[in-house]
């Protein structure tokens, strides 16, 4: 699965995107937990105030995802 990170989350983890394997029936929340286990920066960046999207559509943590999906994590938006 492709995971993309944006803004503070990208900066704190030093990671713009990564590939990761996910088990069947994995949820977005499961993906977030797996990423947070990668180290203290990841823990910090993904612990609070994080929105997520699956295939560029906003979704919540219960969404089931698969290897072919593009999942993204980002903070609340501040454009305009």
């Amino acid at each position, binding site marked *: 699965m492709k995971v*993309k990170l*944006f*803004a*503070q989350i*990208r*900066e704190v983890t030093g990671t713009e995107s990564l590939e990761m394997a996910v088990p069947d029936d994995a949820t977005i929340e499961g993906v977030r937990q797996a990423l947070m286990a990668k180290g203290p920066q990841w823990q910090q960046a993904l612990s609070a*105030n994080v*929105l997520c*999207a699956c295939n*560029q*559509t*906003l*979704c*919540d943590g219960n969404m089931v995802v698969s290897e072919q999906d593009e999942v*993204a994590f*980002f*903070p*609340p*938006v*501040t*454009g*305009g």
Partner: protein
Amino acid sequence: MFARVSEADFSQQALYDELCEHNQASQSGAVVTFTGRVRDYNAGGAIDGIELEYYPGMTESALQQLLEQATARFKLTNAGIVHRVGRLPNQAQIVWVGTCAAHRQDAFSAASYIMDMLKQSVPIWKKEWAGDTSTWVAAKGTDSEAAMRWLTDDKDK
């Protein structure tokens, strides 16, 4: 309708002309444009510009959905959005929104609505620069997920 994200600056005249060059132009008695520009200060003092990050693909799609929603809601004859990204100095143009309608109140309301929705629900993130230091701008809303929910809902329709 047009929704674009670009690093390049934009021309007011070119965007106005593009907005008014449509097959219902003859019924568009009112054209409203909004342009957001980089202010040289924030709540903490002087700044030296901003930097905008976006989510290629998702951002354009959110802008397009926003235009479609506003067009249906306010009886627009046409509408457009251009949002710049990357590093922008003070006073630079950041975002342009244009609306055409038969009546001026629709054009005004739609442009204002598009900007309100854009600020709370389109995936763009801003940092402010002061000297060599940059700070991500904190979101104002308390429930940003709720604010963005329409992006989920609309796609299911």
